[in-house]
């Protein structure tokens, strides 16, 4: 079981690294989804530890997948909107807040 936590923390670290270093917005969304999946894997794994018959972990994994899909849909929609406005998906060049 420690193995699961080992793997998921590694995946989480990878996702965090990607989310912070990638410049392309789509790649950032990929990194975020990797982190989300790592958390999800933990949910499913820990569901086996305590009360497998209640399925709580799996129910929440399902809901997290639903949330992740919505996040991707909205996030990518925003990226496309930004692309249409500024003609780039490079996050370093999008400096909305700097005016």
């Amino acid at each position: 079981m420690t193995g699961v936590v080992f793997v998921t923390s590694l995946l989480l670290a990878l996702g965090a690294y990607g989310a912070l270093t990638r410049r392309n917005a789509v790649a950032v969304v990929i990194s975020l989804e990797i982190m989300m999946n790592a958390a999800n894997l933990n949910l499913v794994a820990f569901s086996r530890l305590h009360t497998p018959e209640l399925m709580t972990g799996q129910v929440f994994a399902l809901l997290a997948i639903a949330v992740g899909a919505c996040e991707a849909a909205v996030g990518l929609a925003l990226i496309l909107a930004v692309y249409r406005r500024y003609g780039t998906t490079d996050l370093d060049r999008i400096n909305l807040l700097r005016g």
Partner: protein
Amino acid sequence: MSIPAPADILFWFFAAAAVGGAAYAVTSAHLIRSILAFGAFLTAVAGEYYLLAAEFVALVQIFVYVGGVLVLMLFALMLSTPGESQPSSLGRWSPAVGVTAVGVGAAIMIAAWHTPLPVVKEPAAGRLDHLGQALLGDHVVVFELVGVLLFAAVVTALVAVRGERR
């Protein structure tokens, strides 16, 4: 040294595939290949779910992520910059970020190593039925809230993508 159980071998097989896919996805300069590696990662995670007796979640993962979100990403990429490959910005801060990310991961690993975890229980029989009953019983509010969330996602994303059209 005894022969490891098939479940363990499979676990580490999928784990290696997931980590490899994720590593390639976050570092590759080639965005389409990055998305493909992300697909491999998702499939490997689905394999892990299946192994952990969550076959339903595994197939949802394939159906929603590989068949849905991945296609969405491909579309988003092709609608914006289909041919471009952008290197990850290996600027000044990149090593620092890497160290921080690895540090956080290592901290969780060390914490996990020192936490006594209970023994894994056998998967419940008839778990598919339990899953459905839980969604309609204890967790029905969350279930309906996901319905609201999905509706909100359609509205938000459509507004964002269509912009102000007079």
